[in-house]
């Protein structure tokens, strides 16, 4: 069984955004979704989280048909960290992470031992235990992102989806975040993330999905997907691809001219 199965999916928002795409994402893999601005990366995330409803096509999450799941059931199958988490409220880190338990709690139930354990674990995994009682407004961008991921982990889902989690972070914090996601994937979690940085994606991801104007160009291992022809065609700029001096994975270097 795949984590995600999309077939013949169409979505338009005034103009077509996704054109009849089909896609399978493996369970347990760390998948990076790449593509230029407007390619439809975030739209895929929003369809998987059911924030957007597709015009037609089918979506299955771990074999279950997306439209047939309640919002609660969906939140127990997949956790989603939205892009650019704009936090209007200034609750504490612990309170944010506790909200990740909502899909597991019945209407009048209090926080039980299982909830507390999941919250502790999520805080520990993300290195946020020491920040538990801090209000969100006192955190840096990277800490805020980790707190939001901790809340997603408290949902105890098998699938974690993130929309451009490294935006606004410096390279140290980008690396820190991707190491965390990689460790989670190695621990058995299916991690699917939209990324902008091709080199970082090649360094960390098992699978790459390359999107271009609402179409899937190719999916597969980084060395198969990230070729200079493909990147030049999709991003419309000249690049050269070379093996990473330490890890051998493909890396791109930009050239000054246009393709």
């Amino acid at each position, binding site marked *: 069984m795949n984590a995600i199965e999309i077939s013949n999916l169409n979505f338009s928002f005034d103009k077509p955004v996704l054109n009849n795409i089909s896609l399978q994402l493996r369970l347990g893999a760390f998948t990076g979704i790449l593509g230029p601005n407007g390619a439809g990366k975030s739209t895929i995330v929003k369809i998987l989280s059911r924030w957007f409803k597709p015009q037609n096509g089918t979506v299955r999450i771990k074999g279950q048909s997306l439209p047939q799941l309640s919002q609660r059931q969906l939140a127990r199958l997949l956790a989603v960290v*939205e892009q650019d988490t704009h*936090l209007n*409220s*200034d*609750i504490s880190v612990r309170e944010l992470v506790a*909200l990740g338990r*909502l899909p597991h*709690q019945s*209407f009048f139930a209090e926080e039980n031992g299982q909830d507390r354990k999941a919250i502790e674990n999520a805080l520990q995994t993300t290195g946020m235990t020491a920040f538990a009682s801090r209000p969100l407004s006192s955190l840096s961008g990277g800490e805020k992102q980790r707190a939001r991921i901790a809340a997603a982990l408290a949902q105890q889902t098998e699938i974690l989806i993130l929309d451009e989690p490294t935006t606004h972070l410096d390279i140290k914090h980008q690396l820190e975040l991707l190491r965390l996601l990689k460790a989670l994937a190695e621990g058995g979690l299916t991690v699917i993330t939209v990324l902008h940085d091709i080199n970082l994606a090649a360094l960390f991801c098992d699978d790459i999905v390359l999107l271009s104007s609402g179409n899937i160009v190719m999916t597969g291992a980084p060395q198969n997907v990230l070729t200079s022809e493909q990147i030049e065609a999709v991003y419309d700029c000249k690049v050269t691809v070379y093996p990473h001096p330490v890890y051998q994975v493909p890396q791109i270097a930009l050239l000054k001219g246009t393709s």
Partner: protein
Amino acid sequence: MEIGRRSLTRTLSIAATLWLLLALVILASLAVGAVSIPSARFGVALKQILTTPMAEWSYEAIIIWRLRLPRVLLAAVVGAALATAGAVLQGLLHNGMADSYVLGVSSGASLGAAVVMLLGLKFTFLGLGAVAPAAFLGAVLALITVITIARRVAGKSTLGLLLAGIAMSSFLSAIVSLLVYFSNEKIQPMIFWLMGGFSARGWNHLLLVTPYLVLGYSLAFSLNRYLTAISISDQTAHHFGVNVEKTRLALLCSSALLTAASVAVSGVIGFVGLMIPHVGRMLVGHNYRKLLPASALLGAAFLTAADLLARVIVRPTELPVGIITALCGGPFFLYLLAKRRSEVL
């Protein structure tokens, strides 16, 4: 866990302080009024009320029981209701300047109530007067109209919401004034009610609104975790498995119910719902599990104190309590507006 225990202790001591504050304000309000009661006799009167049958009471005890207690309790529950409604609306709309008065919900409720009062409808609804249900209808219609127009015109901008609310509020108030103007024989009690306040309110008013307020508050509090999630952002709440549309509808009904029942008995009293939740957040933070009860207690204490002031400032007559709340709330509103550029809420 150390952090958990410390925050629990802090929460409990804040809760105890707020209850104590409310009790003190209520006691002070019972002691002060048109008839002056010396402190020694006040103690005796309270003891009589608690321990002896009514036939043996002194006239001070009767004044306190018949006139002051229902009025003071009414001010307290209305204050709690308005503050809760404001806290709910601020979280739901991600807007620290939202409140039933600013958004025109109170005016909607007052129009609904005024129509029924003028028509003199005497039929009862669930054993209660028709005024409160009509006020609820007016409140819901005004709230939905304002939110729909603001969304359509300005997306989620604060300015769009406030402008739509202010326009709605002025328009509906004008209709209420028009109704009052053309109905001369019933004008006296109407104007009394329109000015907003608690003078001459008795046990029957308290009994009339309490069920609505209990229902509205219970609805909001039962949804406190979902409201905390929505107050972060609609999308985040959605990702935590919250059915945002349904929850929003239930919470809008709750705030409309709290506002409508308040307006039905005490007219339009502004700014309580705007100010109190901010004070609540300073004390207990942004988690609605704590913020709703804190706002309710603070709102109760604030409006009871405001009503006390309204009674003593120009003794032997009284001011409408809305003047006191607006004197505090107007500058507070402007302060929030000035501060808003640098802050999230």
